């Protein structure tokens, strides 16, 4: 198992290296610079500014410098935002994003599991139809549409929650709900399929033949077996929550990473865009790695398959 994890960590860094390289060169291909709109600068001034950021060097030198910095955990300096280091920018904005992201993932997953399980147990009844309808709704309404709807009704019209503010838990409710819809839909659909499958398996029949009540068959045998594979979709779900977060943070004026990302794009702030892209990729590959390792721990078949007995 330790060898497997080491191998995975090596691949993780390889992936990040490739992503960083690709992002770097893509950025270089883009037209325009952060300074292209600044007509007031004379060519000389522009030269000085460019030299200050190292943009007068050849692309290759810039690349080597950037990657060197990356190795030391340095994502460069922002062209905007008071020339702060990109890492500082990210650090300041990490907490709100993490909070609503985690809340949305937990809420969506828990509700999705319940919805999917109920749908599977009441397969082909109106309960199932309703649950399917809800999960398809969750999957198909874009999070920004939901965000705007929630904002309009729950905040603007009925004054239950603040419109766009970031201070206490109250202010995190609406963005969390907006972001939770997608994981909810995903998990519910996945859970239903898994559980329908499990419920028709031989070991469930054996569990019934032991004299377990219908409730106990579900809680003691069906649930655990259907839950294990859910772990595999946590990675992709995290991606969708992160992307959704960019727009949702803007709608609710949350000082998070997503909002920062959008701002950087509109201001051509390349170092920040690159830094955030690499940061997002890093988060993602780490989540996927953790999920894979976790899967190995909770599924006895895999747990023992790698380095255990057999």
């Amino acid at each position: 198992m330790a060898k497997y994890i080491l191998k995975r960590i090596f691949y993780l860094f390889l992936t990040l290296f490739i992503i960083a390289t690709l992002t770097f060169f893509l950025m270089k291909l883009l037209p325009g610079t952060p300074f292209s709109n600044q007509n007031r600068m004379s060519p000389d001034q522009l030269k000085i500014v460019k030299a200050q950021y190292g943009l007068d060097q050849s692309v290759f030198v810039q690349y080597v410098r950037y990657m060197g910095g990356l190795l030391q955990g340095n994502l460069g300096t922002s062209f905007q935002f008071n020339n702060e280091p990109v890492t500082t920018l990210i650090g300041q904005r990490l907490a709100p994003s993490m909070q609503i992201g985690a809340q949305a993932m937990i809420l969506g997953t828990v509700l999705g599991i319940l919805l999917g399980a109920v749908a599977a147990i009441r397969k082909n009844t109106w309960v199932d139809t309703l649950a399917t309808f809800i999960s398809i709704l969750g999957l198909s309404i874009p999070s920004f549409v939901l965000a705007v709807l929630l904002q309009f009704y729950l905040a603007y019209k009925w004054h239950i929650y603040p419109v766009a503010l970031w201070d206490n838990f109250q202010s995190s409710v609406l963005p969390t709900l907006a972001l939770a819809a997608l994981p909810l839909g995903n998990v519910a659909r996945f859970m239903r399929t898994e559980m329908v499958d499990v419920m028709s398996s031989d070991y469930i029949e054996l569990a019934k033949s032991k004299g377990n009540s219908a409730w106990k068959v579900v809680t003691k045998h069906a649930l655990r077996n259907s839950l294990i594979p859910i772990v595999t979709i946590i990675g992709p779900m995290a991606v969708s929550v992160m992307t959704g977060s960019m727009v949702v943070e803007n709608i609710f004026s949350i000082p998070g990473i997503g909002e920062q990302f959008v701002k950087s794009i509109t201001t051509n702030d390349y170092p920040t865009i690159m830094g955030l892209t690499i940061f997002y990729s890093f988060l993602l590959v780490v989540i996927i790695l953790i999920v894979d390792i976790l899967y190995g721990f909770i599924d006895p078949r895999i747990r023992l398959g790698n380095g255990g007995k057999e």
Partner: protein
Amino acid sequence: MDKILEVKDLHVNFATYNGTVQAIRGVSFDLNAGETLAIVGESGSGKSITVRSILQLLAKNADIAKGSILYHGDDLLQKSEKEMDDIRGNKISMIFQDPMTSLDPTMPIGKQVAEPLLIHNNVSKKDAMARAEEVLRLVGIPNPEARMKDYPHQFSGGQRQRIVIAIAIVDYPEILIADEPTTALDVTVQAQIIDLLRELQQKIGTSIIFITHDLGVVAGIADRVAVMYAGKFVEYGSVNDIFYNPQHPYTWGLLDSMPTLETSENNRLNSIPGTPPNLLNPPKGDAFAPRNKYAMEIDEEEQPPYFKVSKNHYAATWLLHPNAPKVDPPASIKKRFEKFKELGGSVK
């Protein structure tokens, strides 16, 4: 002898997209304390549905249309789901066909074996686990104390079937239903499992309903045999009756398709030609008639009743009607009749 189970005129239908499948069409039998009844028949003849009806472990689209299943005189078909839960795994338990898929892959086997005890008895977890360990040893799992926490995938197919058996017997059931418990296993393991069941029967005195489509297995375990075809029992009697004095042409066919020393030498099995009827529209007459070279006109018209061959031996074939012409059974069957006479029986 004590009759502990009496199935009377059982009819089971399945609602399907194409119509109603009449899977069981009037099955009756009884089971005595301590005996083994084997049910044999081709795939699809209704063996599993018959025994699953007893525990009411049927698919959602099943309908037990008619009949009764008396357990110590109480009709199980009238019981509530809760009352059935008290019987399942406690008084009547079941061994399933496929050991590879019958165990919960994410639960340690010790817990799985102890489960029926915890459901039905007021025992502590510790006592239940101790008993589970003891039963695992009884069914022949080596070092059970070290393996209680292992998961199903860490055992071989034969070992898993032993674990499935351990689950079925852990609470000393009165009736053990074994639905093809050896089909998925290789021949040596098959023989071991049969020996194990016989041994267990002697130890705990349970009655067994043993399902198989392999008559070869039957001789080693059963007291009585029922031959099933298209949702009905076509012949039933003692092992000797069925093996050495068979009366139904379908039984003849089954016996003829049994591998013997000679057939395994030249590798040829005489399987019965043709296929069973579609039970969406069962034929008006004898369901076996289209495959029966001894079929008569009446077979197309009317279903044969049970004719008594001897005490406890019945067969549903018009050939036993007093007016039926004498037919010449296959040579191999005649040889069996000879044997029957040697055994002291009287052949009709």
